């Protein structure tokens, strides 16, 4: 779920940039080192980014809205670590804003935090925990993907509620945003979880 251009007022869009930029900077630093050590990293990162973009630009079946991409970057987080994944997330979000009109430029900071950092970290943690606990791999993958999606939307609701607490205060606002977006986001998360589990099954079969 992308926050669109113009929606976040000052100082919130600046604040979310301030929160995300350290991750991006660490990611860039790590990436620089990685690319110097092993030149094959750059093409791999590039195709991974392109894959995430293309997947997110395809409409998921029977659900309005597109496949969001925390699971894509989640995969990036498993492969390259969360910081580099946040750089991938940033690039994908820029292309989504410019090519598809999903999201915006002043809201990049907030969107990078929810989709490029928070979501992937959750996916990463659940995947690790599930594998350690010996839960069925497909179930783990389903949970990681679906919950990362849900968490992303929770974070977005928090971001909106912080910016627009209204009279009733942050918690009521959060409940309101979370409730109304649940209509689209909960089915989306389930579908995405199922799809990603299928993809995983597909890849395992090879």
């Amino acid at each position, binding site marked *: *779920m992308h926050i*669109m*251009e*113009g*929606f*976040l*007022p*000052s100082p919130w*869009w600046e604040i979310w940039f301030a929160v995300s930029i350290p991750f991006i900077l660490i990611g*860039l630093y790590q*990436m*620089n080192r990685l*690319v*110097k050590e092993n*030149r*094959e990293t*750059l*093409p*791999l*990162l*590039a*195709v*991974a*980014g*392109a*894959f995430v*973009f*293309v*997947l997110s630009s*395809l409409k998921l*079946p*029977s659900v309005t809205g597109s496949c969001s991409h925390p699971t894509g970057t989640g995969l990036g987080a498993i492969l390259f670590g969360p910081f580099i994944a946040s750089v991938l997330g940033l*690039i*994908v979000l*820029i*292309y989504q804003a*410019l*090519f*598809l*009109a999903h999201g*915006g*430029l*002043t809201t990049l900071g907030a969107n990078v935090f929810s989709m490029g950092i928070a979501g992937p970290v959750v996916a990463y943690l659940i995947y690790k925990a599930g594998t350690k606990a010996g839960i069925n791999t497909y179930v783990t993958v389903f949970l990681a993907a679906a919950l990362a999606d849900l968490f992303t939307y929770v974070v977005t609701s928090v971001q*909106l509620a912080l910016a*627009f607490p*209204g*009279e009733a205060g942050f918690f009521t*606002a959060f409940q*309101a*945003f979370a409730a*109304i977006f649940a209509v689209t986001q909960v089915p989306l998360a389930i*579908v995405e979880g*199922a*799809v*990603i589990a*299928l*993809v995983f099954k*597909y*890849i395992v079969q*090879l």
Partner: protein
Amino acid sequence: MHRLLEDFAQENGLRDVNPSLKILLGLGSILLCVSSPGPATPLLIAASLSAVTIGLARIPLRCYARLLMVPASFAVMSIAVILFLTGGGAVLVEIPLPGFALTVTTGGANLSLLLAARVLGGMCSLFFISLTTPMTDIFTVMQRLRFPTVFIDLAMLTYRFIFVLIDEAGQIYRSQRMRLGYGTFAESIRSFGMLAGALFLRTWESGEDLMRAMDARCYDGRFGLPDEAPPVSPASALGVVLYLACVAGVSWTTATITLC
């Protein structure tokens, strides 16, 4: 497969205007929108930049209208929340519901209007950038602005592969439709999973191919040079600065105007 905004940008009427100038105009407008205290400024920006995009950049009106619908569902839902949540001022409408009542106050109405205007103005500014300035030109600007090289290189490679993969995804999708994929909801999920899986495989192969291609072409950690950007014409530069100044002026003078 829908067409990307980028495809319009490649052949728009303002293709040969200096990209830095176009980005300055777009970003400046966005900043004016989000910092505008009243709805008049964003609406003015929306109207003027739409006119420029349709009139000068010659983007078909129908496509432009359809683009404006992209953010509509998000905007409607979130603005609805804000409309009912935000208080202050007189009560305009009250919808009684079991247990509680939804109220719309002037404060809520004003904030909602302001947000709707900002979103419209912001999106029109964003569309102005993405419909008039191809990504290839934006790379040039990034290079000028000394963005980290590794970031630009990665963005460029990603850009190239987006189009390779999008083409393949479209073909795979068509071939699935041909074999009656996406018939029912369950089938859709299954078909989509296969598509994503097949695409993942192709992605992986593309990555390996790309490594070989770069090696075969003497890759030594350097990427392409920035293209020469078209020169900034003094008249258009003056125009952009004047426009932004005027809008800022309007923003300052209309700050107190509200809906009710």
